[in-house]
């Protein structure tokens, strides 16, 4: 042993004897992670968050969160001598007079969009595969919290530069706040420290944007990852994969190397976008002045659906007891989003109540094997897309030669009609796919090869599936609908009341399935003519 090695060994020993690190490391570094592309969506979100931390810190060095009025005198000529807030002026300064500043602003904003998109895609993966089931309900709740806070964080972020577009967004936010019955105007007054826009709002949201929410994010993400660690990752079904094991690669070195490499890929793609594609060109928007507004004022996409909802609501107001209740803002701005997000958060509990399934699940569902859930998810996505379309109605109108009114009415009706249709189609599609699975398990895959038999008959050669494939296609369980007793032991009819009936009805819809081929069916076929 060389001298240096000996010293290193001694140091390691010293640390290990006092902390038990070796045992801990051995246990954790060999931890196994399954491998699938859809498991990397969460990673994309995590890495873009890290990019946001890095670029955001860079921006804080020059950003001046103040609504003090200044006269612009920087590098962007078309705005010279224009009066504006210090916040806007410093954002221009970052863009034009700080080396690499515009690149950093653009990477920050692209990373924010990718962060939100990746979180949403990750959430969809978790939903459609049933990864939220026991014991992972807590992590589902954290995820819903992260998405919600992400929307808020992004909105506050693009409100910081105090340009015309962000001011327009804040104005709408203020209107939504004010629409809350009774407390609304006080809340708005409190948030803005007086009449809109006031002087305290930018400094306040700055603290929230760079300190409070990032802190909460860090805490939530840490807990989220710790839970993944201790509950272990779920895996897709397949031969050798059970509810009791995890099949994959050890954390060290395979997974670590891959994850590290993937971080740089995410950084690379984000930086590439920041370098080649303009985002939030605040110098074109101009400084915010109440009374100015631009055609096509849209929020970022993660707020776009909310904007679309507000745009489509018909003018509805009631006057009562000297108060005006603006339903046209209250319903799309608060009530519908409230229902959506509460429903999303509670879904794991709703599903387990509906199915009566209280067991732990570590194997994922193939989306087609749970038609009801998959259809519900598709329906929600359809709803979001319809209202998102209305959020961009003016741009769609000019680019596709339609009228705003056509799109408005299409989405007003569509928001009620399209999601149910999507639900039905998706459910039928899932069942059809199940039927196809059953078909190819029993009869093999069509090869397209025709063979003429001696007596002149043509048949197509079917290739039998491998045992592994057969297993994968048939391993899922066939749930049964909950039985709700008509009478209980003492002869009381319908003991669980409406709730029980509803539950039975929902559970019945939920378990609608094409039965997977059973052992005996397969046997019968094998001994038959094939």
């Amino acid at each position: 042993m060389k001298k240096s090695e000996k010293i290193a060994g001694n140091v390691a020993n010293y640390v290990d004897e006092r902390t038990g690190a070796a045992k801990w490391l051995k246990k954790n570094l060999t931890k196994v992670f399954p491998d699938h592309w859809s498991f990397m969506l969460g990673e994309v979100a995590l890495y873009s968050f890290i990019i946001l931390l890095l670029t955001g810190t860079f921006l804080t060095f020059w950003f001046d969160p103040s609504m003090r009025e200044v006269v612009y005198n920087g590098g962007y000529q078309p705005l010279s001598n224009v009066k504006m807030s210090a916040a806007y002026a410093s954002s221009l300064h970052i863009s034009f007079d700080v080396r690499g500043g515009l690149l950093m602003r653009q990477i920050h904003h692209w990373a924010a969009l990718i962060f939100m998109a990746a979180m949403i895609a990750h959430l969809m993966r978790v939903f459609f595969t049933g990864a939220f089931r026991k014991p992972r309900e807590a992590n589902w709740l954290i995820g819903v919290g992260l998405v919600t806070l992400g929307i808020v964080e992004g909105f506050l972020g693009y409100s910081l530069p105090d340009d015309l577009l962000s001011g327009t967004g804040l104005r709408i936010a203020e209107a939504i706040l004010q629409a809350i019955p009774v407390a609304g105007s006080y809340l708005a007054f409190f948030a803005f420290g007086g009449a809109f826009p006031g002087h305290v709002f930018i400094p306040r949201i700055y603290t929230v944007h760079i300190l409070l929410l990032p802190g909460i994010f860090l805490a939530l993400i840490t807990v989220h990852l710790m839970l993944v660690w201790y509950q272990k990752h779920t895996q897709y079904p397949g031969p050798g994969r059970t509810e009791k094991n995890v099949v994959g690669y050890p954390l060290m070195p395979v997974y670590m190397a891959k994850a590290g490499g993937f971080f740089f890929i995410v950084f690379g793609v984000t930086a590439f976008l920041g370098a080649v594609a303009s985002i939030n060109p605040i110098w074109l928007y101009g400084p915010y002045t109440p009374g100015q507004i631009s055609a096509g004022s849209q929020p970022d996409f993660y707020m776009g659906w909310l904007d679309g909802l507000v745009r489509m609501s018909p003018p509805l107001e009631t006057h009562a007891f000297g108060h005006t209740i603006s339903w046209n803002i209250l319903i799309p701005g608060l009530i519908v989003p409230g229902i959506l997000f509460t429903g999303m958060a509670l879904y794991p509990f709703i599903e387990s109540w509906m199915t009566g399934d209280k067991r732990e699940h570590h194997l994922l569902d193939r989306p087609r094997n749970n038609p009801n859930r998959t259809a519900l998810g598709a329906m929600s996505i359809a709803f979001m897309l319809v209202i998102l379309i209305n959020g961009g109605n003016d741009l769609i109108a000019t680019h596709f030669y339609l009228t705003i009114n056509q799109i408005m009415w299409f989405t007003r009706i569509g928001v009620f009609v399209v999601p149910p249709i999507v639900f039905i189609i998706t459910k039928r599609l899932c069942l059809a796919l199940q039927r196809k699975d059953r078909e190819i398990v029993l009869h093999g895959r069509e090869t397209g090869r025709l063979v003429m038999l001696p007596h002149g008959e043509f048949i197509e050669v079917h290739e039998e599936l491998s045992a592994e494939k057969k297993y994968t296609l048939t391993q899922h369980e066939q749930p049964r609908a909950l039985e709700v007793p008509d009478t209980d032991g003492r002869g009381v009819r319908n003991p669980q009341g409406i709730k029980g009936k509803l539950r039975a009805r929902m559970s019945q819809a939920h378990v609608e399935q094409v039965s997977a081929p059973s052992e005996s069916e397969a046997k019968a076929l094998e001994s038959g003519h094939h």
Partner: protein
Amino acid sequence: MKFGIAKLSSYRRHRFAAPALLLVALLGVGSTFSVASALTASKAETQSAMSTQVSEGKQIFERGCSSCHGLNAEGSKIAPALIGVGAASVDFQVGTGRMPMADMSQQAMRKPPVYNAEQSAALAAYVASLAPGPASVNEAAITWQRDGNTAQGGELFRTNCAMCHNFAGQGGALSQGKYAPTLMGVEAKYIYEAMITGPQSMPIFNDKTISPAEKLSIIKWLKAAQSEPSLGGASLGRTGPVTEGLLAWVLGLGILIGIAVWLASKAR
């Protein structure tokens, strides 16, 4: 981005700036001279020249416009009366090819003009002879290169025009299928005339709401916005966050998912 800004601000110091100014000055002198000589010519002669132009205009009008606007421009069920709209309105509508209207769609679209400058002037003279209205604008009088203030123009534009024409003059949708067109590439003269005549859904901005000097500033800002290179990379149409969101999903997340699929398949 440094380069872009330098380019914008360097117009004044451009090596062609002096010759260009000289040219503008010469044109100014020339037109003063021609006006002066026209004044000295006999009054009768002018009037007969005017009336031939008007009668020429009337002829063209009867052939090309009367089917919709009526034989004496008195209007009809399908088109408004043109009495009192002034030469500026005709110059704008005919010069930008909007009139004669091709199809009776939501709004007259900009097309290649049907009539040349002379015919258009004749039409304008004819309509102006019916009743007084805003006169057409002389190209040489629109001295936005020399006068006007870009930054002030930007503020005026955001206050008065951006709500229909978008923050960067890219155009936008109005209700019932109407739209405010893009202002990129519109000649200075027509921008000016659009402001004083207010075509269709656009309001009229007379000299009290926006002074002539301020109008020049607006034109100057529009021209600057048009020639401003895209400072942050591809401009994505300068229409705001919708295209950005689309790109983030398709290119951003799209590429990353593609790479994830590739990485996961490599592992096997």
